[in-house]
């Protein structure tokens, strides 16, 4: 376990203190059977608080804030969690005013493992919170990103065709994604995706998702981690992210107050109220 003992101690102390005023804190709990997201409540054993394996916590914040519209929760957030929460907040999925952020810096090893460009929660514009640990250097980019531009244009189609053909349509990439919260999903619409057929239609299945991720994907890499077929999804989303940054000057998750350049909803993709 790469958890820094000093950071964990400071985090637990602060969490114990804040639990006196908050309704609960969403984090990871390491129990005998394994580690999973949990709502820590006053009196809970904080020695069970853990920082890995990473799970997307934004959707759980959203769930709890909806169920308890008056409650004030806390969340233990890494850089990627906070970026995800920022994009969720812009689309009315979470309320930053009712959220206390326990920001945790990732270690250099973790940043490297995730190929993370910004392994630190930037809390400046968040109403309430405190960070633990110092920013580590960015991890090196995904090796495929350097290789990709060297692939001739005519071979890129074949490259993705081979990757997407591995898909078993588990919908795990969509299910685990903190930025996927449409009321109905285009990937379940028989117009676009014929039910019961493998592999999914090329290239529409994966490109529909990729386009819907433009201006939303914060590169938390949860999709890639949960993909049973090992499809390099974040390479695809990173390429789109680079285009969005270059053409529209927008970096999803970087700034809580920056408005996304694309419409927040699509005619056929209504996000939940």
């Amino acid at each position, binding site marked *: 376990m790469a958890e820094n003992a000093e950071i964990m101690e400071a985090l637990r102390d602060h969490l114990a203190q804040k639990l006196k005023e908050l*309704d*609960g804190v*969403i984090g990871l*709990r390491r129990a005998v*059977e*394994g*580690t*999973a*997201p*949990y*709502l820590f*409540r006053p009196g809970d054993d904080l020695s069970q608080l853990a920082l890995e*394996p990473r*799970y997307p916590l934004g959707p*759980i914040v959203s*769930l*709890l804030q909806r*169920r*308890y519209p008056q*409650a004030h929760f806390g969340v233990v957030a890494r850089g990627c969690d906070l970026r995800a929460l920022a994009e969720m907040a812009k689309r009315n999925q979470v309320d930053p005013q009712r959220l206390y952020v326990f920001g945790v810096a990732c270690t250099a090893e973790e940043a490297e493992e995730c190929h993370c460009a910004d392994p630190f929660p930037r809390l400046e514009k968040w109403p309430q919170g405190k960070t633990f640990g110092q920013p580590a250097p960015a991890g090196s980019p995904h090796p495929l990103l350097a290789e990709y531009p060297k692939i001739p244009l005519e071979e890129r189609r074949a490259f993705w065709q081979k990757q997407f053909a591995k898909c*078993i*349509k*588990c*919908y*795990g990439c969509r*299910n*685990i994604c903190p930025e996927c919260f449409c009321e109905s999903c285009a990937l379940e619409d028989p117009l676009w995706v014929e039910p019961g057929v493998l592999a999914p239609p090329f290239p529409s299945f994966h490109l529909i998702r990729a386009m819907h991720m433009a201006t939303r994907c914060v590169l938390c890499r949860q999709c890639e*981690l*949960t*993909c*049973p077929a090992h499809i390099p999804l974040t390479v695809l989303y990173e390429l789109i992210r680079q285009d969005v940054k270059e053409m529209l000057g927008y970096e999803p998750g970087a700034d809580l107050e920056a408005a996304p350049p694309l419409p927040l909803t699509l005619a056929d993709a209504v996000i939940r109220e």
Partner: protein
Amino acid sequence: MEYKNVLTVCPYCGAGCGLYIQVLDGEIVGVLPAKEHPVSRGKLCIKGWNATAFVNHPDRLKKPLIREGGSFREASWDEALSLIAEKLLQIRDTYGPQAIGFFSSAKCTNEENYLLQKLARSFFKTNNVDHCARL
């Protein structure tokens, strides 16, 4: 106010993927893959992701049904099991052990499957034992 994740094994096939059932105030609200699970390591197929869909489904059978005159009626477990025992013995005595087959399930534990084949082989004296994947 309680949110927790309950570890379980996917009920669908025999692979035995680990998954968490998300529970909010006693109600199932979703599924998460178990990232530390030695079998599935944080990955699930579409069945695992939807493993809880049947739990509160209106079509779910909650009591045994006995078919009488072409339609089903609800029965108690005692009545249903007695009827099954009676009919199985009747078939065995009339047509012999080869007339009976037992189908077990990947949804059961090893121990439950062991018990079923034990019943088939030792008591009914038949090797007609198979499982749900071939149904």
